[in-house]
């Protein structure tokens, strides 16, 4: 399993992980980029720790928008969350998500933090932690 902290700015801790199952208490307040889908199961796990921001892979969105369902679940907890497009980054590969992921969906909390759909996730996060 992969879990790695990235140094990219003074105002926030950025943690990459191949599965959201790798989160722990120490990640409270962190910006997490996970290569998990953004479905119900991922939303349940992500909601256990009050993260600063969390990203997933949209898994093609799919039936009943199941691939991005976590965004609504996390919105209810006041946590900013988004996904990158499954054609821009490999699901299960956090380094590809970080290098190449393009934001495809955001909840309101993430929009209010200045994230934008169509932006490269790395550019958006670097901007956030550099402010």
């Amino acid at each position, binding site marked *: 399993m992969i879990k790695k902290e990235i140094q990219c700015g003074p105002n926030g801790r950025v943690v990459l992980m191949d599965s959201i199952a790798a989160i722990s208490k120490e990640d409270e307040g962190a910006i997490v980029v996970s*290569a998990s889908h953004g479905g119900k199961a991922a939303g349940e796990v992500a909601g256990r720790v009050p993260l600063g921001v969390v990203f997933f892979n949209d898994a*093609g969105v799919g039936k*009943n928008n199941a691939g991005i369902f976590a965004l609504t679940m996390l919105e209810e907890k006041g946590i900013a969350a988004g996904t990158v497009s499954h054609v821009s980054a490999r699901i*299960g590969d956090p380094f590809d998500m970080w290098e190449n992921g393009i934001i495809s969906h955001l909840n309101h909390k993430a929009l209010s933090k200045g994230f934008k759909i169509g932006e490269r996730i790395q550019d958006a996060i670097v901007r956030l932690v550099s402010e």
Partner: protein
Amino acid sequence: MLVEKVYVSGKGRFVMIMDSITSVGANDEGAIVVSASHGGVSAAEYALKIPLAAVFFNDAGVGKDEAGIAGLKMLQEKGIPAGAVSHETAQIGDGKDTWEFGIISNLNNAAREAGFQVQEKVRDAAVKFADTLSSPPA
């Protein structure tokens, strides 16, 4: 997160239905696992921790470099039948929906040799497959 054991043959074979493949554990040895995880590399790593009879995932729209089903090849290398259901037929992250509605979209060679077929309902296919197996390891 849902983990449900369903007996599907008179020989004591069972299907473990799970929202996430991260729930797989030592008690699942020899089981047929139907998970609602994507079928990527990280998911296959979990599935490979325990010798399973067969394992299914969600194809996650397949996506870039076929990452959503990349785990099928990893399981093939260990000779484990593995497949995915289409993300348009079953809700990723929802094991119950996968079991009830998932239609197989992709299979590795071991799964094809075991008799699984694309376009089949995963539930029907798993029940049929269980009947072909001997009793599970004690």
